[in-house]
């Protein structure tokens, strides 16, 4: 069972309560959205790394040498 912590700032009361069915369903949606977003981010990172490697190869220099150009 998954719980949430609810802090009532008006009273100071802290409760640990089981998620409702609606909240569990909401988490499933969030998890799917997160997985999709993570996959898109990973794909973008991989694409950038691939483009960087291709450019370095084209220029015939290493990443360290490319860094020197930015100093």
């Amino acid at each position, binding site marked *: 069972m*998954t*719980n*949430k*912590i*609810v*802090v*009532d*700032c*008006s*009273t*100071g009361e*802290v409760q*640990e309560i089981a*998620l409702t069915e609606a*909240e569990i369903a*909401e*988490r499933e*949606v*969030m*998890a799917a*959205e*997160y*997985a999709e*977003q993570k996959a898109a*981010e990973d794909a*973008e*990172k991989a694409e*950038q*790394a691939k483009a960087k490697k291709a450019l370095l190869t084209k220029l015939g220099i290493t990443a360290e040498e490319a860094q020197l150009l930015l100093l």
Partner: protein
Amino acid sequence: MATTYTLISSVTVGSGGAANIDFTGIPSTYTDLLVKYSIRDSNNSISQNINLTFNNAGGTAYSERLLYGSGSAAQSFSSSSAANINFQYATGVAATASTFSNGEIYIPNYAGSTAKSVSVDSVVENNASGTAMGLNAGLSSNTAAITSVKLASPSGTFQQYSTAYLYGISNA
């Protein structure tokens, strides 16, 4: 000297973990709100997002833009018409044991009647080359005064000893 920071409430996650931390019943007597958190998430990754919502409102009210560094690359991400603001980081369980992320979520003019802006500064602690740190600017188009703030793990649970502190900031 005027008291500018007032601790409204705080919470430490117990041994069972927690999917959400909900601050409810937030008084409207301050100028701004600040959440300081230290969170480790059960997700099997180095960094894990935390979903932020106000007043339990999802829908399409949120947008954000993130500047992000991983230790080897810098990138930016954005989202719009989203159900939450999700680019604030928690340390996942694939990171060094017993390390926690830390972050600050600043919400100016939270009790006003206009859209609510948010800024987030967060970093994942990891004793290795791969990590995550980000600066995030978010917006909720909902205009109601914020009376509750929810931090939620999208696919795991916040681990024991994770903490969140809610402060009220007064400008005088």
